[in-house]
């Protein structure tokens, strides 16, 4: 049985629309215009225990709505959904005891008191025995280096420090399934890296299933063996990240350098940038070997490098695809 199983999962919101202005507001008293928004439109996928899945999509794609349904916060409109054999919307105690949802912009910790006091409340709520609670707390405090921070009132912590404390608080009960919604948002590079390493270590040690959304490709590249791309509520891609790049970006970027002026390079590929002795070209993947050989033969180069386009470019291309182009790996 998969850890997470969803089949034709749909969520439709009814929203009331109103234009700007007093006239529209007054008309709105008598007659409200409604519109149905298909935030999530018949999506299906399975995740096995221990997998880390990157859940990608532009803002408004349906990622957070899906995570909220998986964690039991929202009732689905239709479709099948099961996590660890439970129906999330029933929010049974045994289910909630095994999952965690961390939202980068939300706080669980009480503002005015040290994080460790909030942790005590979680310990009581999750019925954690003293020794396993202390062990989990020590292990995670060391991994994220927050031993000193947890004794300070949360309001005195910086954003990065607070997020680390929030994540530890969310995982004290050692959940088997983690839903992480933009956990590194707004954090500096070092903090992002620490949290990524922490998630990897947690996944390895506890064989935890992780579904992660992030707009930072570094998070996705470092953590996700598999990505699911969602847009307009539908799944556009589900598979290995490397295959996503292969499929949606048929080009590679080739950079050359020479002692002398390079001249006109348009015969070799699409010139993205050139200034005298340095140039960057975009070349189709299946032509890379031939183009490289010709460049080396015809020009005296001091340097040549071939790299994949930045993943952000690839993702942007995928996001710009129209609604009709749902593709599954």
């Amino acid at each position: 049985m998969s850890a997470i199983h969803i089949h034709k999962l749909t969520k439709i919101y009814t929203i009331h629309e109103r234009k700007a202005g007093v006239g529209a507001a007054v008309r709105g008293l008598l007659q409200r215009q409604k519109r149905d928004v298909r935030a999530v439109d018949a999506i299906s996928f399975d995740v096995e225990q221990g997998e880390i899945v990157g859940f990608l999509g532009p803002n408004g794609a349906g990622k957070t709505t899906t995570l909220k349904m998986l964690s039991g916060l929202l009732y689905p409109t239709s479709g099948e959904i099961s996590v660890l054999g439970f129906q999330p919307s029933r929010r049974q105690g045994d289910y909630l005891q095994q999952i965690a949802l961390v939202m980068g912009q939300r706080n669980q910790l009480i503002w005015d008191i040290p994080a460790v006091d909030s942790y005590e409340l979680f310990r009581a709520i999750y019925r954690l025995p003293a020794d396993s609670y202390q062990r989990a707390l020590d292990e995670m405090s060391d991994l994220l280096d927050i031993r000193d921070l947890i004794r300070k009132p949360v309001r005195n912590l910086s954003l990065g420090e607070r997020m680390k404390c929030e994540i530890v608080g969310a995982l004290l009960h050692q959940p088997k399934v983690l839903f992480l919604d933009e956990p590194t948002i707004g954090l500096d590079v070092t903090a992002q890296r620490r949290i990524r390493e922490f998630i990897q270590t947690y996944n390895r040690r506890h064989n935890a299933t992780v579904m992660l959304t992030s707009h930072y490709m570094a998070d996705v590249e470092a953590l996700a063996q598999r990505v699911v791309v969602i847009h307009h509520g539908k799944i556009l891609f589900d598979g290995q990240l490397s295959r996503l790049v292969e499929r949606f970006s048929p080009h590679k970027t080739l950079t050359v350098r020479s002692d002398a002026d390079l001249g006109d390079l348009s015969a070799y590929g699409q010139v993205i940038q050139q200034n005298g002795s340095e140039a960057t070209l975009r070349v189709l993947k299946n032509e890379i070997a031939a183009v490289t050989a010709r460049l080396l033969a015809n020009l005296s180069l001091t340097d040549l490098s071939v790299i994949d386009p930045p993943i952000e470019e690839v993702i942007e291309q995928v996001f710009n695809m129209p609604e009709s182009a749902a593709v599954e790996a």
Partner: protein
Amino acid sequence: MTFYLNVYRVKIYNSIAAWSQYRVGMLIYTLGEMVEPIIYLSVWSAVAAARGGEVNGFTAGDFAAYFISATIVRHFTQIWHMYQYEGHIREGRLSMRLLRPVHPIHEDIGANVAYKMMMLLALVPTIILLALLFHPTFNTPLWAALAFIPALILAGVLAFLSGWALAMAAFWTTRIGAINQTYFTMMFFFSGQLAPLQLLPAVFQSAANALPFRWMLNFPVEVLRGQLTLNDVAGGLMAQGLWIVAALLAVRLLWTQGIKRYTAVGG
């Protein structure tokens, strides 16, 4: 059971620790709790004096006993959660509580008890001050004084559950300020907060008997003043019990229906 007691214990500790940071705020609440009964007592004492010493059987000393008892009861029936739920629901803050394997009501119970414990610091000097200023007359037999304890606890439970059921309105309408206002206005008249119910017109008294508010204030006050017979007290405790059952059913129904409508906005 020990699970819930443990949760309450930690929640009470955390709440008191958090509120203790705001000493000026606490001081202002304290002064507010003191000022209200002083005003009521000053007014009603003046009315009694102007009417030749009593109003419908209430002497100045009776008024003092009534409003001092009411101050005690009002302390133990405090509830504010209906104001918080609008924010919790409208801004999606309820989500964090829904992720935890305990019903959100329990954290509110912990916070409510914490407030009542902490604000005893305000209640005790208030009662002493009022007693010194207004000389209450109590004719309370011992059995009535003891019966006051369950009457007070049941009043507190009923007030909490009614208020919590009211808070659920926030699932259906995004602005429940007006609903809260209506509730507290009805409480003001029909619980005996403004004046002893015996002094209100007959039609008000009939309405008060049909509503739950008198069981949250007027009834325990009259128990403490020793004004009720054993039968009345027993009947009153039962009425409180029945209203609590009704409130529990309302909470259950409104919660299960309301949570289906929750759209978990934000994040």
